[in-house]
């Protein structure tokens, strides 16, 4: 019984841990837009078209319009015009080079799954009038205004002005702080239990922060968005190395309605764009399929290895049940003899013992499910900074069914033994 309880609990607990891990891995993928987001990025012409390289058009707003009208399987289209890594943002004497300064449409919020914590996103009017407004990520705030850790309070720089490549921009909004659940818990844990002062001079202790996918969150926090027209008019129309306006988009993002339609949606988008590009394939699609695939394999690996270990403990529990049943039969030889004398068939005795064994397993399974909740709470206390383990209904159902199966298998041998008892011998038994 105890074996079954622990077996079920460890099976559920293990699956909860893996689920938490999976959630942790998926967070980073969600942070860059999830699997439904597909980027259209420029690429070199294929070799058989390379003689046309002086005629390529690049990704432009006409692609956006064409896709909007013809690509029915895409539900969201967002153009993006980026400033290179050379762009400098400054405020007073503080200088910062963000990862990503983009001119884009307000719907970039949905496309890249951004969330405004303070202020607002720029709107259509800001875009139409090409206003010098921007929305920043928390990393930009940390670098230009000071972070919570440095200042001791949260600075909300709405209405402040910053200098982007020589132009003054007003901050009208700030994104929420993107981080994995694990990072968030670590940060909150750190704030609640400050680590003792480090001895010696202040120093940096390494690159980046925490865990797989931490990089994705860092990039996302280090973002400045401005209206597409602002980017186009203020930085592209008369700027550039030789003062020639550059109307091409850096990239174009589309969001498809569902992953199942990925293939056909991509084909459709490609057809549309081949027409606007006069059959020159100077673009390609970038999806997150590989990432998704990786997560899936990893999770499967964890699940199988953990599952097998937990299943072994459940099987050991099954052996426990088998022993219980054998002992119970020895105690009840006489009862079995009586039952046979008053008309129980061999089969009826077999079924009786089997059902008893299954009932023991069911009770053990139910108790195991209760214990598993306690076990998961224990995991949360033991590893407070990790991704929270999640108990799924599927895991509960599976481990419960498995425990019943173990009970069934464990009962077979004792049931055969009981059914085979000779009624005369059994009646004589004391």
């Amino acid at each position, binding site marked *: 019984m105890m074996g079954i309880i622990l077996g079920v609990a460890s099976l559920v607990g293990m699956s909860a841990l893996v689920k938490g891990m999976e959630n942790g891995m998926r967070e980073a993928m969600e942070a860059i837009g999830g699997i439904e987001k597909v980027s259209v990025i420029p690429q070199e012409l294929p070799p058989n078209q390379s003689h046309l390289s002086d005629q390529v058009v690049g990704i432009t707003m006409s692609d956006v319009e064409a896709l909007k009208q013809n690509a029915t399987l895409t539900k969201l289209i967002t153009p993006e015009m980026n400033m290179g890594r050379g762009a400098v943002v400054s405020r007073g004497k503080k200088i910062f080079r963000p990862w990503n300064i983009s001119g884009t449409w307000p719907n970039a919020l949905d496309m890249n799954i951004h969330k405004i914590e303070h202020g607002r996103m720029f709107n259509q009017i800001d875009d139409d009038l090409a206003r010098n407004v921007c929305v920043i990520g928390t990393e930009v705030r940390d670098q230009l205004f000071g972070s919570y850790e440095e200042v001791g309070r949260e600075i909300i720089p709405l209405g402040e002005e910053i200098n982007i490549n020589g132009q003054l921009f007003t901050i009208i909004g700030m994104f929420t702080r993107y981080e994995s659940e694990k990072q968030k818990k670590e940060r909150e844990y750190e704030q609640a239990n400050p680590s003792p002062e480090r001895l010696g001079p202040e120093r940096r202790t390494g690159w980046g922060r925490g865990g797989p996918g931490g990089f994705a969150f860092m990039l996302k926090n280090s973002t400045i968005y401005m209206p597409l027209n602002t980017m186009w008019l203020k930085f592209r129309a008369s700027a550039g190395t030789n003062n020639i306006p550059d109307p091409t988009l850096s990239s174009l993002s589309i969001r498809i309605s569902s992953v199942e339609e990925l293939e056909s949606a991509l084909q459709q988008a490609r057809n549309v764009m081949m027409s606007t590009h006069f059959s020159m394939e100077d673009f390609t699609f970038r999806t997150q399929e590989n990432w998704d695939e990786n997560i899936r394999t990893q999770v499967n690996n964890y699940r199988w290895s953990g599952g097998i270990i937990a299943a072994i403990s459940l099987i050991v529990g099954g052996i426990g049940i088998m022993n219980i049943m054998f002992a119970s039969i020895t105690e009840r030889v006489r009862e079995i003899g009586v*039952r046979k004398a*008053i*008309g129980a*068939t*061999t089969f*009826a005795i077999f079924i009786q013992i089997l059902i008893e064994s299954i009932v023991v397993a069911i009770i053990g399974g139910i108790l195991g499910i209760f214990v598993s909740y306690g076990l998961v709470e224990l995991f949360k206390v033991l590893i407070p900074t990790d991704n929270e383990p999640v108990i799924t209904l599927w895991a509960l159902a599976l481990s419960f069914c498995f425990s019943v199966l173990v009970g069934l298998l464990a009962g077979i041998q004792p049931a055969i033994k009981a059914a085979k008892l000779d009624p*005369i011998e059994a009646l004589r038994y004391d």
Partner: protein
Amino acid sequence: MALVELDRVFKIYQVGDEEIRALDDVSLTIESGEFISIIGPSGSGKSTLMHLLGCLDTPTRGTITLDGIQIHNASSMQLAAIRNRKIGFVFQSFNLLPKLNVAQNVEVPMIYAGISAKERKERTMEALRMVDLENRARHRPMQLSGGQQQRVAIARALINRPRIVFADEPTGNLDTNTGETILNLFQELSQQGSTIVLVTHNPEIAAVTPRRIEIRDGKVSLNVDERYATKRSEQVIQ
């Protein structure tokens, strides 16, 4: 036709090289409605005879017919069905199932017979009324006296309306007074038409039944029927 017919039945056990004849060429018949005792000292073969009659065992040689069914070559499943529907057992040590209450104990044979829950309940109460224990239906066997337990066992033995009831030393674990009540109950049942076979080593108990079969060394050594005996003596007087 007789209810039970044994024709030249042998039961032979092989112990090492030695051959033990527990039953040695036994032939007898039991008519429906008879009240019989099988007596004999321990080791005489009377238990073996009862096991064969009760379909718990099959003979080495010979034929046994019960209610027209040949049981000497029946399968264990057929034997179980016959035990269930045609035979009732009453044991020396009562052999009630300790985890079930009185009513449930009486109900068990009907469950194996596949009788509906509603009918089971009615017949259980009827049987308990017959042995005068209806107010103890919810008690556990351990809460009852020996005599009461044996009455429950009798109710259980009769519940499927068997053709024949075997009682193996039914008074062996009871004091004399209680034993008498139980014997009276058997007599009553016999008068109501049940076929009853008492197995005992006690001649006093055997004296209760009109017909006595004595087993010695695996053979029938005495087979008397008082009814005919009296008739014969009456004839002699006349």
